[in-house]
């Protein structure tokens, strides 16, 4: 599938927001660029037919994450320095550029965006076909993402809950909040 105009605009928007977050000196401005970036990328998820991921990204990535960052900023400091942009470091650009070039060298061996059949083993693979053919019969849930998340890979989701719980415990321990005292 070739690049459509709306996808091109969205990709340029998210890349612009990411670069803005990188070069803006003010932390709050960088944070706002990051929130716009999250919102843009959640629209990209919807364009790629992943509405569940889009909803989660919009609620968690653009919503909760921004609130967490603002809370952290409110409890620390927003350095007031002169100049709108950070100075650009040529040495780091060279290093990151080398990394990006090496990564870009792998792109031609990846399947084209939107490929199916033998060209895209993820879409046509045995596991995907199994889930799509049997998810409704096995779980009676229409949404295959929910079926895989809660039924087939329920243990992974339990592990995810453990991660969230330990993160909460770790954050409270680090902040020395004695909420249970």
């Amino acid at each position, binding site marked *: 599938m070739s690049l459509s105009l709306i996808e091109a605009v969205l990709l340029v928007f998210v890349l612009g927001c990411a670069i803005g977050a990188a070069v803006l000196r003010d932390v709050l401005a960088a944070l706002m660029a990051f929130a716009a970036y999250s919102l843009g990328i959640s629209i990209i998820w919807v364009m790629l037919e992943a509405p569940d991921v889009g909803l989660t990204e919009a609620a968690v990535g653009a919503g909760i994450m921004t609130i967490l960052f603002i809370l*952290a900023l409110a409890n620390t400091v927003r350095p007031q320095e002169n100049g709108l942009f950070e100075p650009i470091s040529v040495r780091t650009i060279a290093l990151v550029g080398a990394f990006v070039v090496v990564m870009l060298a792998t792109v031609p061996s990846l399947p084209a965006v939107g490929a199916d059949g033998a060209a895209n083993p993820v879409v046509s693979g045995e596991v995907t076909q199994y889930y799509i053919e049997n998810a409704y019969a096995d779980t009676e849930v229409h949404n295959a993402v929910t079926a895989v998340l809660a039924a087939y890979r329920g243990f992974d989701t339990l592990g995810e809950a453990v991660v969230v719980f330990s993160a909460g415990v770790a954050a409270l321990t680090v*902040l020395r909040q004695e909420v249970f005292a």
Partner: protein
Amino acid sequence: MLELLDSHYNYFAVMLLLGIGLYMLIESRNLVKKVIGMNIFQTGIFLFFITLAFRAGGNPPIIEEGGGPYVSPLPHVLILTAIVVGVSLTAVALALIIRIYTEYGTLDEDKLKQLYYD
């Protein structure tokens, strides 16, 4: 090159996002901006997964009679889990940052190094 960009556009965006995230992780002196960079790096990898799950003309994987073809649901599930884990990671990182600020009174990496070695 342009043909490759036309057929693999999302992968170019993935690699550029990884680059931007890495740049912020290395170069930002403020610790909060480093965490933002980590999140950008993360979403770059998410874009890679979701793009691999996509097929042209596919529908969201909500199974109906004669509703196909569907995009692959498995990468969506992995990324849903990864988004939530990413938020947990960010929460712990920000809690550490608040503690660092109450201990040292700065979030600047260079000043922190100085204070640490003095």
